[in-house]
């Protein structure tokens, strides 16, 4: 009993610490606006600086979710300015620079394939039946850097069940919006647009798998994959497909965009694995963002530290072959 209470307190502490970060940030933002005299002319500011300062700061109604780590989350600044979202450019700050005017409402997701309730669903239809949870997850990029992110979302499995997948639904395929007018990165064929990702049905139904709609208790910033993105904390970040417009239940294993462009380097599973190196760099250690110039790298954990939850999904699978 005491132990449980202790745990509960610990986790509520963890939440409080990031709420403070978020709060400070919010206050800084207000202060900046006041100092530059932008509050009085807020309407003008939003025209001059579309979304950059006056981003959608609406607070989401959330409850604490399971599986959160006690590690200190990265700052709002780091999480929202250091992104891989090639639809908005290949530089780390490009998404922050180029995604501010991206329109995410109205938003429709097409559901198709091996299920009883296919159709076009509005963002509200998708999100409103679910309770939004705060979940602080480790995030490991295939490029050997990592962060800790306080996501807001709900289990993907709860959503998928609503579409009543049939027994032939062995995999789920997801697609990002294709709109070169809004997504300047799509004007060059760096990847095979639109971005496609896939999961086995068991991975998709796993309670760790999150359909994310926010960060730090706020609506997801565009550069982080608004309005809907996936997060599977035991997989490399690129599996977490952003700005999702299609969900398809399939019989056969779908091919994902990175696998199509470089099959020797990126596979279907892309589980975090310190023992299987990327052909061009080691995956044994990672650089935690936010440590500054003199921080050491830290060892990468099997399945990014989520082995207890997900290892059983891969029993009998040769992880060297199925990287």
């Amino acid at each position: 009993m005491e132990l449980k209470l202790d745990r509960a307190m610990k986790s509520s502490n963890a939440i409080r610490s990031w709420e403070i970060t978020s709060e400070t940030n919010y206050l800084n933002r207000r202060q900046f606006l006041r100092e530059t005299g932008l509050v009085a002319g807020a309407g003008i500011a939003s025209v001059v600086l579309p979304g950059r300062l006056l981003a959608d700061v609406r607070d989401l109604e959330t409850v604490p979710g399971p599986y959160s780590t006690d590690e200190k989350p990265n700052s709002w600044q780091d999480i929202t300015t250091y992104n891989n979202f090639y639809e908005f450019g290949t530089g780390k700050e490009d998404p922050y620079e180029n995604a501010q005017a991206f329109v995410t409402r109205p938003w429709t997701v097409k559901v198709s394939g091996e299920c009883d309730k296919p159709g076009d669903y509005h963002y509200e239809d998708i999100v409103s039946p679910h309770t939004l949870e705060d979940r602080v997850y480790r995030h490991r990029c295939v490029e050997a850097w990592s962060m800790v992110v306080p996501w807001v979302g709900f289990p993907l499995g709860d959503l998928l069940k609503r579409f009543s997948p049939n027994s032939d639904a062995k995999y789920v395929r997801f697609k990002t919006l294709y709109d070169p007018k809004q997504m300047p990165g799509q004007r060059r064929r760096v990847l095979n647009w639109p971005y496609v990702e896939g999961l086995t049905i068991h991975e998709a139904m796993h309670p760790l798998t999150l359909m994310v709609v926010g960060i730090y208790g706020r609506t997801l910033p565009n550069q982080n994959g608004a309005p809907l993105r996936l997060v599977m904390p035991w997989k490399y970040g690129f599996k977490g497909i952003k700005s999702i417009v299609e969900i398809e239940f399939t019989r056969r294993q779908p091919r994902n965009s990175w696998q199509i462009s470089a099959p020797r380097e990126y596979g279907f599973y892309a589980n975090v694995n310190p023992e299987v190196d990327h052909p061009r760099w080691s995956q044994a250690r990672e650089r935690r963002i936010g440590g500054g110039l003199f921080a050491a790298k830290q060892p990468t954990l099997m399945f990014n530290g989520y082995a207890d939850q997900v290892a059983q999904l891969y029993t009998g699978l040769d992880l060297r072959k199925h990287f």
Partner: protein
Amino acid sequence: MTAKNIRALKVLVFLACLAPLGKLGLEIFGLAGLGLGANPIEELIHRLGKWGLNFLLITLAVTPLRKLTGLNWLIRFRRMLGLFTFFYILMHFLTYAGLDQRFDIPVIVEDIVERPYITLGMSALLLLLPLALTSTNGMMRRLGRRWKKLHRLVYVIAGLGVWHFYWQVKEDILEPSIYICILTVLLGYRILARWRAKRATRTTFQRSDHERTAHP
């Protein structure tokens, strides 16, 4: 160009070559609204490497520029530019070895052996070393003809350096492709110039032969 003017210009060029370092200093300390972003070590490594490549290409541009414009005094800036190339590439390596790998020798050796793009970069740096060491007037005199031969290594180094950059990027090869294009032009110019010179000498010989037979 008088000697005095060249000396003054050398000071200016020297300061200009230090400008990227100065900017990096401001960025490291977060001054003047500059910064290195969320992953400062990686950013620092990338920027130093890119400046190394920039200086390498600028150094290789001196000779074509001199020949095309006839401004022979340009050659007097080549050594300084070459040494700045070495300086920025050495800093690039030291930032990788020191800040990124914290001088963990086994890890660095493993990287050099197992990661082809690091093997390339390391080879380029090692080949640069003798060029930097033999850049003094004394060494030039002592090595004589062999100095010129030795310093042709710079073409190999440039190839390795650009290849290192190309292999390191994940999927967007636009930027390394630009470097490859510039290097191709700079090396292509030399090949073309050589081929022309050869042809010119051959035609002169042929003409003199012809003249000889016509007027025995």
